[in-house]
């Protein structure tokens, strides 16, 4: 009678423990913490001082020790037990097995050393829908009594629950691994994009020795302004690419027109003014990971007062990106030699930008541009983006100028 009462109490305790196990298995903890807690629940259910939990890696054909408890050796985590597919087939799914049950198995014989070290009394192979996911290894019970039949029944239920938990955890691990791989792939793809775009930019600039590296400078200045305006990383990259490619349409314009030193005829002006549209036509066919590249290049010759081309857009219709490109493109044109004129001295270029502020160039963008210059001159910016491109002998003069213009 007393025995039966005790059995009933044990059964109740097991039920409560299974509920605890369920709670641990579905908790929001990370995999190791979750599994360690689950291992504590299981060892508590059977008064087992030592145990370990293994995760199966199908590609590597081994069981890896994920967590352990009560082992003398404190450096067991990550230790492995090789197991082959045909050896897995010989295991009884979710059924407790002793060393004696497995004595004839190649798996046991191969891993006998670790088996002894961990003092495994009961081995519980975990399966979900026929798929092997891992194993729980329990040591001897405190006092050394054997596992009773009723306890083995409870172990079978435990095995099912642990198998599902481990299975889900592994799905999650696989996902995390895939995400990391995708990120690597994405970074590599972006690098290829950059390389390709830079090659294009070089091709554009090569068409005209006067505009050599114009695209690089435009891209570099544009990035400086976008960064100062607090743009997101992704959008800054976008304007960098747009800067590099804004004149790609010039590839189609007759090289004689580009290099002409005399005043252009009306048809020639017409020809050269087609380049933003051609740039847009080329780039809009490419699915860039950055937004608005096409729009930026299409409108980089528009002006606030609506006298620009190709669409005579007005201030309200122009985005910050377009306004940035319009300013830095014009500024770089002023400060480089062109077939039809020499470059302006920096002082004159600044004056020209200021003169056109509000009609051709946006005030906020212009002010930002001068503010950056001022900061770069004062050494407040770690990697200057504008200053290194400006060749000027009298820097003192420029410094005074820029500080006067910065707002």
């Amino acid at each position, binding site marked *: 009678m007393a025995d039966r009462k*005790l059995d009933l*109490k*044990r059964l109740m*305790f097991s039920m*409560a*423990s299974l509920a*605890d*196990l369920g709670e641990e298995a579905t908790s929001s903890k990370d995999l190791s*913490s979750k599994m*360690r*807690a689950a291992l*504590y*629940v299981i*060892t*508590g*259910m059977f*008064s*087992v*001082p*030592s145990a370990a939990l293994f995760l199966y890696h199908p590609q590597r054909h081994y069981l890896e020790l994920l967590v352990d*408890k*009560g082992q003398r050796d404190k450096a067991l985590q990550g230790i492995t037990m090789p197991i082959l597919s045909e050896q897995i087939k010989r295991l009884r799914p979710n059924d407790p097995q002793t060393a004696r049950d497995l004595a004839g198995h190649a798996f046991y014989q191969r891993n006998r050393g670790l088996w002894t070290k961990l003092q495994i009394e009961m081995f519980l192979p975990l399966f979900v829908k026929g798929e092997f996911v891992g194993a729980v290894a329990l040591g001897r*019970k*405190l*006092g050394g*009594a054997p596992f009773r039949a009723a306890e083995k029944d409870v172990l079978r239920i435990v095995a099912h629950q642990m198998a599902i938990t481990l299975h889900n955890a592994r799905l999650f691990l696989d996902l995390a691994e895939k995400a990391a791989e995708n990120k690597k792939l994405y970074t590599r793809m972006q690098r290829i994009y950059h390389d390709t775009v830079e090659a294009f930019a070089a091709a554009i600039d090569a068409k005209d020795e006067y505009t050599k590296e114009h695209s690089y400078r435009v891209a570099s200045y544009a990035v400086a302004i976008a960064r100062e305006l607090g743009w997101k990383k992704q959008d800054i990259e976008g304007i960098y690419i747009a800067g590099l490619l804004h004149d790609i349409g010039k590839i189609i314009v007759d090289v004689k027109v580009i290099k002409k030193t005399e005043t252009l005829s009306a048809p020639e002006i017409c020809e050269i003014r087609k380049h933003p549209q051609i740039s847009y036509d080329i780039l809009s066919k490419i699915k860039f990971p950055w937004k608005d590249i096409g729009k930026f290049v299409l409108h980089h010759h528009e002006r606030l007062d609506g006298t620009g081309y190709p669409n005579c857009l007005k201030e309200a219709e122009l985005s910050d990106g377009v306004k940035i490109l319009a300013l830095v493109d014009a500024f770089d044109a002023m400060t480089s030699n062109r077939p039809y004129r020499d470059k302006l001295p920096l002082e004159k270029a600044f004056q020209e930008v200021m003169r056109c502020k509000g009609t051709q160039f946006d005030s906020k963008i212009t002010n930002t541009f001068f503010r950056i210059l001022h900061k770069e001159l004062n050494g407040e910016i770690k990697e200057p983006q504008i200053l290194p491109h400006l060749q000027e002998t009298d820097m003192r003069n420029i410094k005074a100028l820029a500080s006067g213009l910065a707002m």
Partner: protein
Amino acid sequence: MSNFSLSSRSARDVAVLMPKGYINDMGAVSLERTSEQMLGKGMNSLIVNFSNVQYINTIGVSIFTGMVQKTLEHRSVLCFTNMKKAHRDVFEMMGLIKHVMVFADEDDALAFLKRKG
């Protein structure tokens, strides 16, 4: 958030552990770790005072199973004092009680250990 805290003191070769709250999650593992450290430092006897322990679940049993195992390995004495009936029932059912010495309170345990020398 774990509802568990642990205080401990030791004099000569006796350590007294005072767990407080619920011994039902991994927050209580410090109990197992601390007792292992005490044994490592050469404590011959560990006393666990259960006055402020409210609830023990399977994880708790696992922690005490670990403690019992370690004291056996170190040939030390493990004493439980101030246990409520519910605690005692759990330890009895799980077969832990035969490996520990149970006393009504801490003084009884200390007196016994002193006599034992």
